[in-house]
């Protein structure tokens, strides 16, 4: 039931979540997340961004981290969609939706997948700013967010 998709096409949160729950009566909770391109980052205006990825490894990394989520929490379905190519401010970039019987597991798995994706999936953002193009630098806060999930 897991769906992992990387591509240039836009996605629709409503369609994806409806597809998860359609015909089922065992799901009690669906937590979802959409990340969007903003017009401002690190103090500069951003006119557009381009997402590059590593075809093959991207799908492998996403599959691995979704599998890790499924082994840590009792999940009924997971969808991860990540766009690549050129995006404008306001465009959705990434979608993670997690279905479970109970909300605590759905929330935890959804946030875990986003945090893990930020540090383990090979995507890179390049922004178009008034000062020219720039590659987005990795953020220490993303490492910290991912580290929260490490088990001792």
């Amino acid at each position, binding site marked *: 039931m897991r769906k992992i998709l990387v591509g240039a096409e836009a996605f629709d949160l409503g369609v994806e979540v409806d597809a998860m729950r359609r015909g089922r009566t065992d799901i009690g909770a669906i937590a979802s997340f959409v990340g969007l391109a903003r017009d401002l980052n690190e103090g500069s205006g951003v006119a557009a961004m381009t997402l590059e*990825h590593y075809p093959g*490894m991207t799908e492998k990394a996403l599959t691995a981290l979704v599998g890790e989520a499924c082994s840590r929490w009792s999940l009924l379905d997971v969808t991860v969609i990540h766009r690549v190519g050129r995006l404008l401010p306001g465009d959705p970039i990434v979608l993670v939706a997690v279905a479970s019987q109970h909300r605590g597991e759905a929330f935890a798995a959804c946030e875990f997948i986003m945090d893990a994706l930020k540090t383990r999936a090979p995507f890179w953002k390049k922004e178009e700013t008034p000062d020219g193009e720039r*590659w987005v630098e990795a953020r220490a806060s993303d490492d910290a967010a991912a580290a929260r999930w490490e088990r001792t």
Partner: protein
Amino acid sequence: MTLHVLYFARLRERFGLAEESLDFAGATAADLVAHLQTRGGAWAEELAAGRVFRVAVNQDIVALDARLPDCAEVAIFPPVTGG
């Protein structure tokens, strides 16, 4: 051994190269990085000690002391910034 080496994002741009095939005599990812540094210019700069980059072997991120299997697909790229 023969390696297929890929570069992404800022490194791809700075090296002016997305991929190449390499005949390589070393054993580990660190050996490969040292070899690429000898090309000088952006190679020496971006792969210098203290610069932060990632190495993946056959699409798994590895530490620099990882051994490279023959015919490996090796990728070198900046820390990821997706999502």
